[in-house]
């Protein structure tokens, strides 16, 4: 029987495979100039002078003096300038944009711009930042954010504890390596700046470009181009390019392209926040957890971007899927002179999940209990109080998911047989992910609106601002509409995300697209079905409505329901340890998910598999070191992501758990899929080596060092 979950061919699969799809670099915009950023070579310095060479005809250097409006990029805050003013804060900080027709001459000009810097002692580590080395960089304490949540009475619980166990977990940088590098094109058309780009959030770009140009919302037009992968790397980062681009196009009234080469992309774009999470647990005399104290610090890099929101996720997911009676969570995001960190799939939850899962494994070992059995005692249930004193409103199907995953992976046998003597290990992670913007953000910050428009020929257009970036949104939204309207999917037209064409239904982030916007598409389609008249044009608008049965969120105190619904996941990873080289071979992976109801099984499985591989890459292959502010792995030869030979064959299954408030019961899936790979991998490696590890990337070098 065909349900919504029954896979269809993705609507864009044929044109993409056959090479018809035009990405931004494939598009013809007529005459254009190239733009390339001139960047700081210092991690922290005052700019004393900038000496520009004399320029040949047709070449320009655009800088802070050309900004008609504010020299500030409006993200959550506006600390990141379009062009560095007096200070530079990381190697790669934009100082100017060189524009012209020939790349070679642009390159020559870039090499001839002379900057006199006055170096300031730079901050490269969390500890240096907290110590305010070189003088405070941000606020009073170098913290972009400092949040604390308390549930119950952790202080008393700790004072009464029979045992206290503490450990610290660390995770490293991760670079998105979307296969299509950053690219934006600015056109002077209709008397204003028009920007086409590989983007996740056209309206974020409009929001940041308009104050820079000093114009109203309709003073710029932003148009999405098909996007070759993003993973959070095109959520805010394009704002850095588009603001500089807009200033140049506005001044020169010419078309300009900024395309990143791969090395430029790896070295200068935003990264996943490195984390250091200390978890302290109080146990009673029977080895039961009575309290936890989680202290998380993330490295936000040189500018805030969305560090505070990532930090919130780190804090809200601090105890994972466990209902701990007394919990204190503190999180800080600190400034450093490293490349800025920003959104990356999971957005703080992978870091938190890594820490809590590893910690629970260590507690289990310490108390002599199998890790899964230990964890199962604390599984959240419907009605469980969260760390922000909200509630889990849905049925929690972890037990069923665990049973499925165990059966699929033959876990029970392997966990008995495997270990140091066999050099084999199997790891099991459990995790969740709150869908959509935190708390009341969907209403207060976004307030999504969408429209569907029935044409006279009975085809239906969908107008949303959420983009197809590989996650299958074009197909799943079309499915939601088609199934609701009971018309063939071929009759659905997914309109291009053009800020002059579509309403703002919010950014393509936070695992909100299906959950929030897909729901609006479903509701609008249902309304349209009721009003349907063959041969007539009908438009239906739909606006976001906050779910009713939630505990209201207070953004000041961080109390209440942080998220309306959670997706849940279980990953099992099997490894083999090579004693000679300390290399790990991943020989199997099994994944079970509760995403409510998958809008398309194959689409969600694609996310599951891709997310797991990306999470595993982060766990053991993707090493990125920064020395004196300079990234050491600068090419795809040195920053290695998994190849087809680095990954196991994966097996996936679902547990259905429809969410009442959404279209067809679907919940988010885009990010949760990255939350479980690393801790499952780590547990498996620990089993196979008989050694405890607390940080990733867990490279063979690190394993060897720990085994000494």
């Amino acid at each position: 029987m065909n349900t919504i979950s029954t896979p269809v061919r993705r609507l864009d699969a044929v044109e993409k495979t056959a090479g018809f799809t035009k990405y931004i670099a494939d598009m013809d915009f007529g005459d254009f100039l190239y733009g390339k950023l001139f960047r700081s070579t210092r991690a922290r310095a005052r700019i004393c002078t900038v000496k520009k060479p004399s320029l040949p005809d047709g070449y320009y250097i655009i800088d802070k003096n050309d900004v008609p409006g504010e020299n500030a990029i409006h993200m959550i805050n506006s600390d990141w300038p379009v062009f560095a003013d007096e200070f530079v804060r990381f190697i790669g900080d934009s100082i100017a944009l060189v524009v012209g027709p020939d790349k070679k001459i642009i390159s020559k000009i870039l090499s001839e711009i002379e900057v006199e810097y006055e170096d300031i002692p730079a901050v490269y580590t969390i500890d240096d930042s907290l110590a305010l080395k070189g003088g405070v960089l941000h606020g009073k304490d170098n913290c972009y954010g400092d949040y604390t949540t308390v549930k119950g009475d952790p202080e008393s619980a700790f004072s009464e504890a029979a045992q206290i166990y503490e450990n610290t977990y660390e995770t490293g940088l991760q670079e998105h390596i979307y296969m299509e590098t950053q690219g934006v094109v600015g056109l002077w058309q209709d008397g204003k700046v028009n920007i086409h780009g590989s983007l996740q959030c056209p309206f974020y770009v409009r929001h940041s470009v308009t104050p820079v140009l000093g114009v109203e919302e309709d003073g710029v037009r932003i148009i999405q181009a098909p996007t070759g992968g993003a993973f959070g790397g095109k959520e805010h980062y394009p704002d850095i390019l588009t603001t500089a681009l807009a200033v140049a196009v506005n001044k020169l009234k010419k078309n300009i392209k900024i395309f990143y080469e791969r090395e430029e992309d790896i070295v200068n774009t935003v990264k996943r926040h490195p984390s250091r999470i200390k978890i302290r647990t109080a146990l009673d005399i029977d080895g039961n957890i009575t309290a936890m104290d989680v202290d998380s610090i993330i490295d936000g890099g040189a500018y805030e971007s969305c560090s505070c929101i990532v930090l919130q996720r780190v804090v809200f997911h601090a105890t994972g899927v466990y209902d701990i009676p007394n919990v204190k969570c503190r999180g800080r995001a600190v400034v450093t002179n490293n490349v800025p960190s920003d959104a990356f799939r999971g957005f703080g939850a992978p870091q938190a999940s890594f820490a809590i899962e590893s910690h629970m494994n260590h507690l289990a070992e310490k108390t002599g209990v199998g890790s899964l059995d230990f964890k199962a005692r604390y599984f959240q249930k419907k009605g469980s109080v969260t760390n922000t004193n909200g509630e889990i409103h849905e049925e929690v199907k972890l037990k069923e998911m665990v049973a499925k995953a165990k059966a699929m992976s033959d876990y029970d046998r392997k966990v008995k047989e495997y270990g140091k003597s066999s050099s084999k290990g199997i790891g099991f992670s459990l995790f969740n992910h709150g869908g959509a913007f935190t708390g009341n953000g969907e209403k207060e910050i976004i307030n999504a609106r969408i429209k569907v428009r029935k044409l006279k020929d009975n085809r239906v257009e969908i107008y949303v601002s959420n983009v197809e970036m590989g996650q299958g949104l074009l197909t799943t939204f079309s499915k939601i509409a088609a199934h609701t309207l009971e018309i063939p999917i071929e009759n659905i037209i997914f309109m291009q995300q053009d800020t002059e064409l579509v309403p703002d239904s919010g950014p393509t982030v936070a695992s909100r697209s299906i959950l929030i916007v897909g729901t609006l598409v479903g509701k609008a389609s249902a309304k349209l079905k009721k009003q349907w008249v063959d041969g007539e044009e009908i438009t239906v608008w739909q606006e976001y409505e906050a779910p009713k049965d939630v505990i209201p969120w207070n953004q000041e105190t961080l109390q209440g329901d942080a998220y309306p619904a959670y997706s849940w996941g279980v990953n099992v990873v099997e490894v083999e340890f090579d004693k000679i080289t300390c290399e790990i071979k991943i020989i199997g992976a099994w994944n079970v998910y509760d995403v409510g109801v998958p809008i398309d099984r194959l689409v969600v499985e694609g996310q599951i598999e891709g997310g797991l591989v990306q999470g595993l890459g982060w766990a053991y292959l993707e090493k990125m070191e920064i020395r004196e502010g300079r990234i050491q792995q600068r090419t795809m030869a040195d920053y290695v992501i998994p190849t087809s030979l680095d990954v196991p064959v994966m097996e996936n299954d679902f547990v259905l758990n429809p969410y009442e408030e959404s279209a067809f019961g679907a919940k988010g899936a885009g990010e949760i899929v990255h939350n479980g790979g690393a801790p499952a991998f780590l547990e498996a490696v620990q089993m196979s080596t008989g050694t405890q590890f607390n940080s990733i990337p867990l490279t063979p070098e690190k394993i060897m060092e720990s085994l000494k």
Partner: protein
Amino acid sequence: MKQKINFTLNGKSVSVETDPLKRLIDLLRDDLSMISVKEGCGEGECGACSVLLNNEIVNSCLIPVGTIIGASIETVEGIRESESGKRIIDAFAVEGAVQCGYCTPGMMVGAEWILRKYDKPTPDEIRVALSGNLCRCTGYDMIINAVETAAKRGLK
């Protein structure tokens, strides 16, 4: 210093006057409109620029056109017109092997390459053959399945 470079592109004779040190990817994309050939890294690491040169898969970002005189170059623009190409496109769609699509034309070239060599490639053989084509979205399983499916369908 321009030179005449003659070769065949997707079965048709081509003659261009160009710098022999120009990269093949640039000639294909900029001068011959073969936009299926994508630049993912410019250093031969990712395979997004894969084309067939005399039936063998190569990275066009590393090839100066002065070295392809008389050669047969095939891109997805050509491969998609053949029965094999159509089978591959269909298999990719059916198996969920396409997400953002940026690596996909390169994967298609890889698939065509393998299927010309093997009637019944095993999953391991497919993985080795595609080990130079990187994908960040799919985790590879569905792509491997797609090539297997295309092979099976081609056996009738």
